[in-house]
Structures are given as structure tokens and as C-alpha cells.
């Protein structure tokens, strides 16, 4: 039996149709997506929680559908009409999951099913849900005559989640990104499921990504900024805790003119003077004192640094008002929809769980642990290669530029 259970209509349109027969009260949907019903009543505040709309039509012709806004319930993904309200014989009933286009059944804007539920399911065949992977593991690896004779599901659950976390850090594709505007405060809050950044870029007028680099050695956001007395001792409040002030380092960094750091002031005489004043160079035009440009600083895209104390990411002043994209990694466990594994890494996940369970057991033969460790490593490497998306045609395209001179 094939693994795909949705029809083409369910997958592409997010719709499933039924016909009333005057008797049936319940109509079971078979989407991969669970139906969510907050309320059938558009005037109820919970109506917006619905992830679908229900339409009926007597003719079944385009434009002939109206939204069904009379009482019904959903039980186990089955639409259930109350007794006495059996859909009439031949009545066309359509369950439409919400999608960006609103679907083709609603006639008015209010009737259309706007949302992203259908889009969330697109491409889902690329992944396997973590819960399914755990069930598969229990079937294939745990039981009489297998390596794991008896293993608690909670152990499998623990190691599966740990493996997914580890995979998320360095094996799986980084799919999380946020498009943000840099406010006047020059800092943005880290995403809720943020673990580490992959790349930060600002987007120019052409929509091209321009990488912003970390200000590792240029500045810092201090973790603590205690207020000191005149002899330098931190002062405390009534509760005995240090009194914290605002960071002067951050204030100066916010005011800093980036051109003075990246060497772009050469065309602006005022900035050149500022540079001299800032660094106390004596005499006029001491260009020679720069000893050439430092490549890591010779870029005008801007800088960012992590403010660990406030859980924010701070940016250099030239980025104010700019559009940035923060690409980051999470651990794959933040949200239910994230707890999935690419099928290309499914076997690596099983190998990882198996090795983790066997290696943490007492009295396990070491040769077996070693074997499983090698197996895990090989499968993980394989998964990394697969997920690296190395395609021959793309490499060929890159290599076509190989006759160019590489300048250092």
C-alpha cells in the first residue's frame, strides 16, 4: 500500500467533497491535516480558530456554493451534523482547508477560506513526523529476537528528541529565517525558537542578500553594567542586588560612524577629521598609520553582535531602518510542526537512537556498541551528504567559471 493517502484534490486544493443522501449525518474527512473547529458560527470569536470552511451547493456548479454556517461539530476529523439536519439528497458538501488563495468555493471575500493550512502541508512528503519515526523504531528495533529486547518508549522518545536536536544543529537544512526591520534602537529580539544564527544579511533595493558580519572584536554588549561608586565598588539596592545601569559601550556603538571603522571615509573630509579626532592621530592625514585595510573590517554591509543579557541581536548604526533577514537554527522541538525529520535522514535517526540506547545500557557488549557507533556515524555522514544537495549540474555550472583568475 502506498504511503500517500490524500487524493490529488486534497493535496493541491485542500478540498474534499461529499454528497448528502438525506440520511447520513457524518462525513469523515481523510486529509493529512487534522480539522480544527473553534466554532461553526461566524459571529463567535472562536470561529477564527477554524482551519477549514464548510460549503454546500445544490447544483455543484462553480459560483453555486455557499458557506455552511449552521450548527455542526467535528469528531475525529468527521463532520457531524445534528440530528434532524441531515444534508438533503444530492446536496454537494465541500470541506475546504484554508489556503492563501482562499479556495474556489467562497463567492465573497468573507466566504473565502483564507489561511496557510494547505500550504503547510505542501512538501510534507519530504519529511516524516517524529512520532511516526518513533513508532517505526518500536516496530523495527524493539522486541523479542531483536537487539533491543525490551525498551521503554519513553527512552526511545528521549533519545529520538535528543537526536533530532543534534541533527538540527549540524546535519539538517536550516529552514528558519525571519525578515525584520532594524528599529531606531538598533536591536531586535531573538526568535522564540532561536538556538544559533546561520547568517544575517540586509536586503538591498534589488532584493539581494548582503551578508552582515559579527562584530566579534569590534564591540561587545556587556552582560552586566553595575553602577559604581566613586571608588569603583558596585552599589546595591534595598534588596541587596547590584544596581544596573545602561551600557555606555552600547551607546557609543550606536553612535559610531561605521565609515570610520571600515575605511570608507577617504571621500569625505569631515569624516576623515572625525577619524583623526577619535583616534588622536597627530598631524594631518596620517593615512599611513592604518597600515592597510584589515579585510575582516573592510566591508560596508554592517555588523551585528549578540546581546546575551537582553536576548537581542544588536546592529551597527548604518543599518537603521534597513530590512534584514536572520537565518537561524532551532532544535527541531520548538513547535509541533517542526518535530519532523527529512526522509533523507530517517535511517540516520534510527541508527542514532539505537546507538544511544545500547551505549547507555549497563552490561552491553562493547563490540556491539562500537558496531552501532560506526553504523551511526556512517549513516549520519550519508545524511549530511544527501542533505547538502550536491547536484552534478550545479557543480558543472559553477566550474564553468574556472578559467577566471582567482585574486588574493
Amino acid at each position, binding site marked *: 500500500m502506498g504511503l500517500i493517502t490524500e487524493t490529488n484534490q486534497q493535496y493541491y486544493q485542500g478540498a474534499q467533497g461529499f454528497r448528502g443522501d438525506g440520511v447520513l449525518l457524518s462525513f469523515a474527512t481523510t486529509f493529512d491535516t*487534522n*480539522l*480544527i*473547529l473553534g466554532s461553526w458560527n461566524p459571529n463567535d470569536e472562536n470561529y477564527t480558530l477554524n482551519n477549514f470552511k464548510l460549503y454546500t451547493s445544490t447544483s455543484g456548479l462553480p459560483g453555486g456554493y455557499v458557506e455552511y454556517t449552521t450548527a455542526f461539530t*467535528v*469528531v*475525529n*476529523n468527521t463532520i457531524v451534523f445534528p440530528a434532524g439536519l441531515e444534508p438533503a439528497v444530492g446536496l454537494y458538501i465541500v470541506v475546504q482547508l484554508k489556503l492563501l488563495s482562499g479556495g474556489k468555493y467562497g463567492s465573497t471575500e468573507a466566504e473565502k477560506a483564507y489561511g496557510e493550512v494547505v500550504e503547510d502541508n505542501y512538501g510534507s512528503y519530504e519529511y516524516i513526523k517524529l*512520532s511516526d519515526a518513533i513508532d517505526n523504531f518500536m516496530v523495527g528495533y524493539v522486541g*523479542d*529476537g531483536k537487539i533491543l*529486547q525490551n525498551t*521503554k*518508549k*519513553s527512552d526511545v*522518545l*528521549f533519545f529520538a*528528541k*535528543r537526536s533530532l536536536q543534534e541533527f538540527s544543529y549540524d546535519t539538517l537544512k536550516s529552514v528558519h529565517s525571519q525578515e525584520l526591520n532594524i528599529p531606531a534602537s538598533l536591536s531586535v529580539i531573538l526568535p522564540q525558537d532561536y538556538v544559533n544564527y546561520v547568517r544575517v544579511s540586509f536586503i538591498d533595493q534589488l532584493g539581494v542578500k548582503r551578508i552582515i558580519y559579527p562584530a566579534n572584536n569590534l564591540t561587545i554588549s556587556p552582560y552586566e553594567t553595575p553602577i559604581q561608586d566613586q571608588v569603583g565598588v558596585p552599589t546595591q539596592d534595598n534588596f541587596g542586588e547590584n544596581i544596573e545601569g545602561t551600557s555606555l559601550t552600547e551607546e557609543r556603538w550606536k553612535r559610531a560612524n561605521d565609515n570610520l571603522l571600515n575605511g570608507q571615509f577617504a571621500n569625505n573630509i569631515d569624516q576623515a577629521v572625525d577619524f583623526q579626532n577619535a583616534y588622536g592621530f597627530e598631524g594631518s592625514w596620517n593615512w599611513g598609520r592604518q597600515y592597510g585595510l584589515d579585510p575582516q573590517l573592510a566591508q560596508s554591509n554592517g555588523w551585528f553582535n549578540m546581546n546575551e543579557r537582553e536576548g537581542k541581536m544588536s546592529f551597527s548604526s548604518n543599518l537603521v531602518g534597513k530590512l534584514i533577514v536572520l537565518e537561524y537554527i532551532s532544535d527541531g*522541538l520548538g513547535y509541533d510542526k517542526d518535530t519532523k525529520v527529512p526522509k533523507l535522514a530517517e535511517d540516520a535517526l534510527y541508527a542514532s537512537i539505537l546507538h544511544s540506547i545500547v551505549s547507555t545500557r549497563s552490561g552491553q557488549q562493547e563490540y556491539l556498541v562500537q558496531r552501532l557507533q560506526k553504523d551511526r556515524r556512517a549513516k549520519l555522514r550519508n545524511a549530511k551528504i544527501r542533505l547538502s544537495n550536491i547536484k552534478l549540474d550545479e557543480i558543472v555550472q559553477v566550474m564553468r567559471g574556472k578559467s577566471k583568475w582567482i585574486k588574493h
Partner: protein
Amino acid sequence: MAVNVNTVYQTVLFILNKEQRGYVPPAEFNSLAAQVQLEIFESYFPDGNQLNRVNQNNTQNNTEFFNMSKDIQSKLTPFEQELQLTINAENAFLQPQLSATGSINRIVRKFGSIISTYDGQPKYDSITQFTSKSDYNKIVRSKLTLPTKQNPIYYLSSGTSTSSSLFITPLPDSVLANCLVYPLNPRWNFTIGNSGQYLYNSTNSVNFELDGSEQTSLVIGLLKYFGVVVNDPTIIQVAEQEAQQTSINEKS
């Protein structure tokens, strides 16, 4: 297939009456029959455990009729029941009240797999994992293993009730338990004949519920006890030797 209680009784009487050793009245037979049936029933668990080790070594045969582990499993099949557990005021799940007439007329020996059902949208029917109370306390404190509707766990405790109850987290709407129940006590019912003799009456008699293959074991087991009753060491000795020989043969 159950073992006919009259067949066993007549066989036992036949052997005992040989050389006028003694006679067993029905009341004594019924009492000891229940005891022997229970003994054989309970022996399935340690024997099953022992025979299952062959599975674990991957040296078990997979023949249709000669796999002893499967054999014991099939002997327990008549005692497997799926019971809908009932919830009490403590939010613990118990086996339903025993009823002499209903389908639940016997006591649960062991709980097997537990399916917890969570109504709502979506509905979950989840295999529920058994843990000790100690493990339960650890599992619920880890965010990675926290029980969910898809991965519920339970522990057994008597709580405030006298029988063993299941405490399931998260609390399901209904629970279906695959259980092993005790066999019903056998009963050789009779009427009194014209000369005051006992006549078998199949009405209200209860057969042994053990598998048909256990007939010999039942007879031997009963003879062992009746040897004590009639004070004849020869019967005890012969019965014990017979039982031992069968056991060695099965497990080797």
C-alpha cells in the same frame, strides 16, 4: 478447547479406586480441581518466561506446531480479554465491577497493553507505557519525555481502593485494557441417584478452562493431592515423577 470436568473426575476415580485405595467425593474434587487448575495456570508465567529466552537468543524454531513459547501463548489465549476500565473518584482506572452474569465475571490476573483514548479533535488512541512509580516521577519531570496524549504513561497503585488501579497521565477519556483473567473454578455438579450414588449433571457443571492438552497434567496434579488425601505415598510418588518428566521434556 476446554477439558471436560467429568472426564477428569472419572479418570481420577478410576485410578484411585484401583485396588480399593479410596474414593473422592465431588466436594473434595471440586475444591482440589480449582487448586490444580490454578497451579497449572500460574506455571505458564515462569515457564513462558523461560521458554521466551530462546526467542531472545534468536534460536527459537519457527515451526508451525513445535514452538513451545507460542504453545504457552496459545494456552493463555482463552484467558485474554479486552476490558473497558472504569474511572473512580481518584481519577484512577480500575477493572469493572465483577458480575456473576455479565461478561466480567472473573478477576484480572495481569494487565497487558493499555490503550488510552483521548476524545476530541483529533482523537488519539495511544499505547500507554507502564512505568514504576519511581520512573514515573522522573519521566514527568523531563521536558523531553513529558507524557502527552500520543505518549501516555501509567503506574499501578492501590490508591485508596483495595484493588490495583492504573494512574494514567495525561488523563484519558476511556481506557481499553488487554488483560489476562483467572480461569473460572471447575465444578462437577451432580444429582443423587436411586441408590444414593452421585450422578454427573452437566447443567451447572463448569469445565476446566485450560487447554485440552492439559488434561493429563490435570489428572496427574489431582492424583498428587488425592494421594495425600487417601494417604498413599505410591500415588504421590508416581504422580510427581510423571509431572517432573513432562516438565523436563517440555523445557529441554
